[in-house]
C-alpha cells in the first residue's frame, strides 16, 4: 500500500503542476509580490541546507555509532545506546524551537557580537576610524553594517537544526551497520596483532561502509523532507541564489518550505491557494519526490558496488 501511495500522488502532482510550469521556472528570482516564481533559489536553498546539515551530522552520527558499538567496557556504550533511543523520539518541530535558543547562545555571540551601530568600535574588526563607515554602505544609524536579524535566516542556523534532527535518525542505522560486520573479520585482525583502533579503521569501517552509505542516503532524504521545520526560522521565501561560501549567513529556503508557503498561504488565510502559486507549489513537491528517487537509486547502486568489493 505504500507503493500505491506513490502512484496516487503522481497524478495529483502532475495535473496542476505541468501546465503553468514552463513559465520561467528556473529563473533566479522569486517574489510573490511580483508573481515571479523562479525555483532556482529554492532548489539551491535545498541543496545548500542539505549539504550543511549532512556535513555536520555525518561525523557526529558516525562518532555516536562508534561509541555505541565499540565502547563495550563499562557504561559508556550502554548510555550512548539508550540516549540514541531517547533522542530519536523527539519530534521534528521541537527542533524548530531550538532555533531561538541557538540564536541567542551561539549565533549572536559568534556572529554579531554585542554592539549596536552607535557603539560600534571599528578597532574590533581591525578597521581604522578613517575607513569606517565604509563608503559604499548606505549610512543608517539604526542598522548594523550587517544585519543581525539576518542571522535568523541563515543557512548555517537551518543547517544546524536539520543536522540535529537527522543525527538520532542516522546514528542507530550506522550502529547497526557496524554491528553487522562479522566477528570473524575482527578476530582475524586482532589475532594477527592489530589493536582495536587499527582494526576499526581498516577492517570494521570499510566492511560497514554499505550500511553507512544507506544511513547517509536516508539521512539526506530526511533532511530534504524535514527541512520544513526550517520554515520556522528562515521563512519560506527564497529571494536570491546565495554564494555558497560567503553567504552562509544569508537567507535561503528549501523546497519544502517554499512549496508549503505557496500551497498554504499562511498568515491566517483560509489555506486555499490560487492559480500559479498552486501549480508551482505542487511542482516543488514533485521535484522533491524525483530527487528522493534519484538519491535512493544512487545509494543502492553504490551499496551494491561496495558489497561486491568486500563480498559480504
Amino acid at each position, binding site marked *: 500500500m505504500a507503493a500505491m501511495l506513490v502512484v496516487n500522488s503522481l497524478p495529483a502532482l502532475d495535473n496542476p503542476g505541468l501546465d503553468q510550469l514552463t513559465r520561467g521556472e528556473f529563473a533566479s528570482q522569486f517574489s510573490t509580490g511580483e508573481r515571479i516564481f523562479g525555483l532556482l533559489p529554492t532548489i539551491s536553498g535545498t541543496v545548500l541546507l542539505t549539504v550543511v546539515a549532512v556535513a555536520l551530522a555525518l561525523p557526529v552520527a558516525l562518532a555516536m555509532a562508534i561509541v555505541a558499538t565499540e565502547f563495550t567496557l563499562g557504561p559508556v556504550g550502554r548510555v550512548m545506546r539508550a540516549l540514541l533511543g531517547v533522542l530519536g523520539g523527539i519530534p521534528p518541530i521541537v527542533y524548530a524551537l531550538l532555533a531561538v535558543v541557538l540564536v541567542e547562545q551561539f549565533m549572536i555571540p559568534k556572529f554579531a557580537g554585542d554592539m549596536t551601530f552607535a557603539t560600534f568600535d571599528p578597532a574590533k574588526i581591525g578597521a581604522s576610524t578613517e575607513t569606517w563607515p565604509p563608503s559604499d554602505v548606505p549610512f543608517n544609524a539604526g542598522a548594523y553594517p550587517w544585519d543581525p536579524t539576518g542571522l535568523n535566516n541563515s543557512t548555517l542556523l537551518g543547517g544546524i537544526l536539520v543536522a540535529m534532527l537527522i543525527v538520532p535518525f542516522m546514528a542507530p542505522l550506522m550502529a547497526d551497520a557496524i554491528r553487522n560486520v562479522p566477528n570473524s*573479520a575482527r578476530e582475524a585482525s586482532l589475532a594477527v*596483532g592489530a589493536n582495536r583502533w587499527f582494526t576499526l579503521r581498516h577492517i570494521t569501517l570499510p566492511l560497514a561502509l554499505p550500511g553507512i552509505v544507506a544511513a547517509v542516503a536516508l539521512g539526506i532524504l530526511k533532511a530534504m523532507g524535514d527541512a520544513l521545520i526550517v520554515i520556522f526560522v528562515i521563512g519560506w521565501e527564497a529571494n536570491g541564489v546565495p554564494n555558497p561560501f560567503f553567504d552562509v549567513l544569508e537567507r535561503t529556503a528549501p523546497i519544502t518550505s517554499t512549496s508549503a508557503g505557496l500551497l498554504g498561504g499562511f498568515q491566517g488565510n483560509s489555506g486555499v491557494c490560487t492559480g500559479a502559486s498552486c501549480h508551482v507549489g505542487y511542482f516543488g513537491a514533485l521535484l522533491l519526490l524525483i530527487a528522493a528517487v534519484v538519491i535512493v537509486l544512487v545509494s543502492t547502486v553504490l551499496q551494491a558496488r561496495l558489497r561486491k568489493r568486500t563480498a*559480504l
Partner: protein
Amino acid sequence: MELEMSNVIEVEKLQVSYGDQDAVQGIDMKIAGGKVTAIIGPSGCGKTTFLRSLNRLTELNEKCRVHGSVTLDGEDIFAMDPVSLRRRIGMVFQKPNPFPMSVKDNVLYGVKAQGGRGTRAILEESLRKAVLWDEVKDRLFSSALTLSGGQQQRLCIARCLAVAPEVILMDEPAGSLDPGATLQLEASILAMKGAYTVVIVTHDVQEARRVSDYTAFMLSGRVVEFGRTEDVFESAAKEVTRDYLAGRLVTAAAAVA
C-alpha cells in the same frame, strides 16, 4: 609428563568460565617449543576455549572469566599488553577468514598493523612457508576472495607467519576443507615444525596422529591425558582415551574417573 625440549608455554591451573558455566576446569600443561601439539576431544569439551585463552581472545566476550596462570617464555601473558601478546602468538581459525583485500595486502596486514613496512621479501617468505607461493605468485594483487577454500586457509597461515610469531594456534583449521586441501594444509603444518611452536585443535583424530608430536586429550574441560603422540595413540594410560581413539562414545562422567 617430562619433556626434553624447552617449554614455550606453561599453563597452570587454568580455568575459564562463561557466566557460571565452566568451560575449562583446571588445566596444567607444558607445551614444547618447536613441536606440534594436538588437542583432541569430543565437541564441547572446551578445547577451543582453551586455545583461545592462550592468546587472550576470550577477553572479547564480556562474560568470560579466566583464572590461573599461563606463561610464555616465562612471562605471564595476563600481565602483558594483549595486543603485544598476539604478535607473538598467532591464530588460524576454523573457517578461513581472509580480509576483503588482495593476497598481498592480506599477508602484509599484520606487519603494517604493527607499524612495520611490508616488503616483498616478507611476502614471498611467508607464502612459501605456508606452501602457497607457487599457486598465487602470479595473483598477488587479485582479491583474496577469489582463492579456493584451501588456498584461503593457507593464506591465513601466511598472514599469521608474516608477523613472525613464536607460537601458532590453530582451531580446527581443516574443518571446512576437502580432503585434498586438508593434505596440503597438513603439509604446511609439518613445514613449520622446528621453526614455530604449533598448537592445533582438531576433532579429526587421524590428523592429530599425522601431524603432531604431542597430543592432549580433553574431556569436559579437563585434560585427561597428555603425552607424546605415539605413546597416547598406541598405549594410552586411561581407558576413556582408548575408547575415544577407537571411535567409541565417551561420556562426560568418564573424565572425572
